[in-house]
C-alpha cells in the first residue's frame, strides 16, 4: 500500500486561509492575561464553593476553618478558569459548534506587537520568549528563597525565622527550582530553536505548546499560595506520610507540581513529535544538531516519567482530601509506595535537567573551537544511553530506607553505568578542543564552566552511588552540594551560555559583552565558593534541611552564606544586563555574529513569521567547520520539485538515507 502524496505546489508565504482574517475587537475584549485572571478568580471561588458543598460533613481544620477538599477543587477550577479566560478552549468550542477554525499559521501571521506575548499565541517563537521571561521569574523567586535559607543558616542557634517558616522557605525553594529547571531549556530554547534547527515552519502541535507555557504561571501562583497557608513541611520531595499529615500548604505543593507535570508532558510530546516528523528534506538523523538530540531524549524522558509523578501526587491528594490511605502504613498503605513513585519520576527528572545542558554545550563548542564536533555518534549515543539507563536507577535514593536491601548492588551497578555515557560527553568535548582555535566569548566561557562544574558533580555522584560511602553521605549536605553542582553548575551555566549565544537570534538584540564577562566570572567564582565547602559540611555531619547545626560548622556555613549572597549579586548583574540590553540600549544584531553553521543562523534575526520562506533542503551537517569544500548547510530556496522528490526517495527506501 503506497501513501498518497499531494503534489507539490510552489510554496507561498503564510497568508489567509478560507476562514479569512478575524474581525478585530478592542484589546480588552480579546482573551489575554487580564481575562485569564478574571477566569482564574471565578474558577477558584466556583471550585471552592463546590468543594465546600460536596464535603460539608468532613472535619475541618480548627485553625483555618477549611478542609483540603474545597482548596484542591479551588486550585483545579481556578487553573481551568485561567486557561478558559486566556481563550485556550475557544477553538475547541468553535470546532464543536461547527464554525471554521483558523489554522495555526494564520494565527501566527495575525499576531503582532507586544500584546501577543500576553496572549495564548500559537507562534513557537512567541512561546519561546514567553518561556524565557517566565523561567527567569521562576529562577529569581527560587533564588530569593535560597538567600533566605542561607540567611537563617548564618548562625547555628540564633534564628531569623521560626522552624515552620524555615521549612516553608526550603520547600518553596526546592519545588520552585525543580519545576523551573525542567523547563528552563526545553521551554525557551527548545520551543524557539527546535523548528529553526530542523528546518520546520512550526511545531507539530502549536496549541499544546502554548497551553504548556500558560500552565506554568498557574503552577507558580498555586505554589506560592502555600506561603499564605503556612507552607509545607516536606521539602520538594513531599515524602508521605508527612505530606498526608501536613496542613493546607501541602495541597498547594501537590496541585502546583501536578500542573507543572502536565505542562511538561505536553511540551515533551510536542517536541518529540516535531523532531521526528517535521525535519526538512535532507535533515537526516546523522545531521541533526546535538541540541535537537538532547531535546529528543529529554522529551522521551518527560513523556514516560512525569505521568508517574502526576499519578503519585494524585494519590497523595486523595489521601489528603477524601481519606484514602495509599501512603499510610497503619491503614494498609505504604510509605515506600510514595518514595518509589516519586523517585521513579525523580531520577529521570535529574537527567531531564542534565541532558539539555549537554546539548547546549555540544552546540556551542564547535562554533567557538572552529572545529567539527568530535565523535558525533558518540555524543548522540551518550545522550540516548543516559536517557535509557536513567529509568533503572531510582532506588539509589532509598539505599538506607530498608526497601529491597539485596537489590542494592544492582542499583549501584546501574547508577555507576550511567557514568559511561556521561563520559562520552567529555570525550566529545576533549576531542573537539584538540588543536582547536578556542575563542573566549561569553557563551564559550559558560560552556567550559559546565565541563568544570559537572565533573565535580558527576564524580561526587559516583561516591553517592556506592552504598557504603552513601551510608555516610546520604541525606547530608554532601548530596545537596552534589546536585547543585550538576543542576546549577551544569544546567544553569548552560542556560546562561545559551542566553548570551541565542538571544541575538531570538530577539535580534545583543547582550552587553562587558557585563557578560563580569557576570560570568562572578558567577563562576561564587558558585564554586558556595557549593564546594558544602561537600565538607556534609562529610562533617550536617543533615539537609535543618535549621540548627553543630557549632563547629559555623565558619564553613558562614563562608557559604556570604558566597551565596555574592552569587545572588552575580545573577543580579545578569538581570541588569538583560533588562539594560533588551529594553534600554537595544543594540541590533541581525546577522550571524558567531559565524555559526547552524541552520537557525541562516535566516535573519529575529526569524520572520513562518521561519523559512520555503522549506529548506539540508545539504550538509551543522558542524563541518574547517572543511574547505563543505557545501552550505542548506539550500534556503530550493527549486520546485526537490522537496517532493526527496519524499519520494524516502518512501522508496523506507528510511531517509
Amino acid at each position, binding site marked *: 500500500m503506497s501513501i498518497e502524496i499531494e503534489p507539490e505546489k510552489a510554496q507561498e508565504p503564510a497568508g489567509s486561509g478560507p476562514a479569512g482574517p478575524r474581525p478585530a475587537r478592542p484589546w480588552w475584549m480579546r482573551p489575554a492575561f487580564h481575562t485569564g485572571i478574571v477566569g482564574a478568580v471565578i474558577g477558584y471561588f466556583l471550585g471552592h464553593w463546590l468543594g465546600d458543598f460536596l464535603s460539608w460533613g468532613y472535619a475541618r481544620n480548627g485553625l483555618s476553618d477549611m478542609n483540603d477538599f474545597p482548596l484542591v477543587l479551588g486550585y483545579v477550577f481556578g487553573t481551568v478558569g485561567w486557561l478558559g479566560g486566556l481563550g485556550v478552549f475557544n477553538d475547541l468550542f468553535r470546532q464543536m459548534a461547527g464554525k471554521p477554525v483558523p489554522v495555526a499559521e494564520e494565527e501566527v501571521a495575525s499576531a503582532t506587537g507586544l500584546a501577543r506575548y500576553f496572549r495564548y499565541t500559537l507562534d513557537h517563537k512567541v512561546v519561546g520568549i514567553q518561556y524565557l521571561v517566565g523561567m527567569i521569574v521562576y529562577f529569581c523567586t527560587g533564588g530569593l528563597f535560597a538567600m533566605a535559607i542561607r540567611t537563617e543558616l548564618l548562625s547555628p542557634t540564633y534564628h531569623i525565622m521560626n522552624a515552620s517558616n524555615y521549612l516553608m522557605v526550603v520547600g518553596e525553594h526546592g519545588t520552585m527550582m525543580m519545576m523551573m529547571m525542567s523547563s528552563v531549556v526545553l521551554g525557551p530554547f527548545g520551543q524557539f530553536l527546535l523548528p529553526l534547527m530542523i528546518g520546520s515552519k512550526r511545531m507539530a502541535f502549536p496549541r499544546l505548546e502554548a497551553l504548556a507555557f500558560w500552565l506554568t504561571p498557574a503552577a507558580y501562583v498555586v505554589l506560592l499560595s502555600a506561603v499564605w497557608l503556612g507552607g509545607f513541611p516536606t521539602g520538594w520531595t513531599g515524602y508521605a506520610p508527612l505530606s498526608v499529615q501536613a496542613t493546607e500548604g501541602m495541597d498547594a505543593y501537590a496541585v502546583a507540581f501536578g500542573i507543572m507535570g502536565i505542562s511538561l508532558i505536553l511540551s515533551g510530546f510536542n517536541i518529540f513529535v516535531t523532531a521526528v516528523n517535521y525535519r526538512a528534506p535532507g535533515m537526516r538523523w546523522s545531521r541533526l544538531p546535538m541540541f535537537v538530540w538532547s531535546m529528543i531524549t529529554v522529551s522521551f524522558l518527560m513523556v514516560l516519567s512525569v505521568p508517574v509523578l502526576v499519578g503519585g501526587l494524585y494519590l497523595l491528594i486523595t489521601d489528603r482530601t477524601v481519606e484514602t*490511605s495509599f501512603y499510610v502504613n*497503619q491503614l494498609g498503605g505504604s510509605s515506600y509506595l510514595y518514595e518509589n513513585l516519586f523517585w521513579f519520576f525523580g531520577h529521570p527528572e535529574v537527567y531531564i535537567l542534565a541532558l539539555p545542558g549537554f546539548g547546549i554545550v555540544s552546540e556551542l563548542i564547535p562554533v567557538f573551537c*572552529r572545529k567539527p564536533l568530535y565523535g558525533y555518534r558518540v555524543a548522540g549515543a551518550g545522550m540516548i544511553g543516559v536517557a535509557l539507563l536513567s529509568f533503572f536507577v531510582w532506588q539509589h535514593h532509598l539505599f538506607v*530506607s*530498608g526497601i529491597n536491601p539485596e537489590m542494592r548492588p544492582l542499583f549501584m551497578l546501574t547508577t555507576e553505568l550511567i557514568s559511561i555515557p556521561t563520559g562520552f560527553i567529555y570525550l566529545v568535548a576533549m576531542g573537539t578542543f584538540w588543536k*582547536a582555535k578556542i575563542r573566549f566569548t561569553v557563551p564559550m566561557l559558560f560552556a567550559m564552566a559546565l565541563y568544570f562544574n559537572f565533573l565535580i558533580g558527576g564524580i561526587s555522584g559516583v561516591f553517592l552511588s556506592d552504598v*557504603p560511602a552513601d551510608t555516610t553521605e546520604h541525606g547530608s549536605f554532601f548530596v545537596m552540594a552534589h546536585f547543585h553542582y550538576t543542576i546549577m553548575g551544569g544546567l544553569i551555566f548552560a542556560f546562561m551560555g545559551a542566553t548570551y549565544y541565542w538571544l541575538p537570534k531570538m530577539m535580534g538584540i545583543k547582550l552587553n559583552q562587558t557585563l557578560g564577562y563580569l557576570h560570568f566570572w562572578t558567577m563562576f567564582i561564587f558558585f564554586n565558593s558556595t557549593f564546594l565547602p558544602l561537600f565538607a559540611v556534609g562529610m562533617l*555531619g550536617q543533615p539537609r534541611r535543618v535549621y540548627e547545626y553543630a557549632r563547629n560548622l559555623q565558619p564553613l556555613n558562614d563562608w557559604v552564606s556570604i558566597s551565596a549572597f555574592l552569587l545572588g549579586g552575580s545573577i543580579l548583574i545578569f538581570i541588569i544586563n538583560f533588562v539594560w540590553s533588551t529594553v534600554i540600549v537595544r543594540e541590533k544584531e541581525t546577522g550571524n555574529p558567531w559565524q555559526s553553521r547552524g541552520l537557525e543562523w541562516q535566516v535573519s534575526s529575529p526569524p520572520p513569521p513562518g521561519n523559512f520562506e520555503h522549506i529548506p533542503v539540508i545539504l550538509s551537517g551543522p558542524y563541518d567547520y574547517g572543511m574547505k569544500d563543505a557545501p552550505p548547510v542548506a539550500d534556503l530556496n530550493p527549486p520546485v520539485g526537490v522537496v517532493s522528490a526527496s519524499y519520494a526517495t524516502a518512501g522508496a527506501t523506507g528510511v531517509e538515507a
Partner: protein
Amino acid sequence: MAESQAPATPAKAEPNHGMRIFLIWIVLALAADLLIWFVWYPHLPPGRMTSSASSQQFDIAVLALAAAPVMLFVWIYFGYALVNWHHRKGDDEDGPALFGHTGIQAAWIGGTAVIVLAAFVFGTVELIVPDGAGSGEGTTPVWKPVGSNYLQVQVIGQQWQFSYRYPQFGGMETTQLMLPVNRPVQFNVTSLDVIHSFWPYLLGVKADANPGVNNVAYTTPKQTGKFVVRCNELCGIWHGAMYGYGRVETTSAFAVWARATELAEQRSGILRALPPYSLVYDPTVIPQLGVTLTKVSGITGAAGYYYPPQDPVTP
C-alpha cells in the same frame, strides 16, 4: 587508571602534546593520590569509632584514589587546551576538521567501563563483607555478623525525638543510646508516625525509620566515647532540633548501667506501663488498656493537625 586514560589523548597525531599532557598528569595524579592516602584519609571524618564507620571511610578513600586521577586528567587536558590552542589575533582560519577516531573512542569507552565495573565490584564487596556497612537492611537482613552474641537495640523515631528499647534487658526504654564496646549491635529501627532516619554520625550507621517497618542495621563499636544521634530525614518542623546523645562504654560499665536502669524502671513501674516489646508499633492501639484510640487519618502526632496553635520558640 593510567592505561585506560592515556589513549584518550589523540597522542598519535601529535606525540608532542599527548606526551606533555600525559607527563603533567602522571606527576600530579601520583601526588594527589599520595596526599589522599597519607594525609587526607587518616583525618577523614567521621573517624573510626565503629567497624562500619571505618569500612565506610576506607571505601570513600579508595573511591577518592580512583576519582582524583580521572578529574585531574580532564582538568589538565582542558587547561592545556586553553593555554595552547586558543584563538590568536589575525588568524581567522578554522581548526582542523577532525570528526573522530575509532581507536580513541573505543579506548575511552573501554577504559571508563573498566573503572565503573571495578567500582561496582569494590562497592559490592565493601557492602557485603562488613555486614551491610552500617546501612539499613530492611526487615530481613541478608548480610549480618556471624554468631548471635549481638546486643539488640530498638530505635524508635517519633516527632521529634529518638528513644531506645533493649529487649535483652526486659524491654527497658531510654532516651540516651548506651552501647558496649567490641560487641556487635543490631539496631531495629522503626517509627511511630512519619519517616525519620536514624543517624548516629560517629557510629557510621544510617537507617530510615518507617512507621510499621522494622529496618535492621549492624555495627560493632571499637572505641568508647560520646556521640550525637541526628534525624536525617525531613520529618516536620522540629526536624532540625531532633537530635540526642549516646555513649559507647566499656563492657563492664555497660553491664552495670543496664542492670541498674532495668531495675530502676521495674521499681518505678515504667516497664509495666510500656507496651510489650514488638518490632513495630501501632501508636493508636494501647494493648494494656484494650483500647483503640480514634484514628485521625491514621496518623498520630498533634492529632492529625500538624502545627500547634503557636509555634513554640524552642522545642
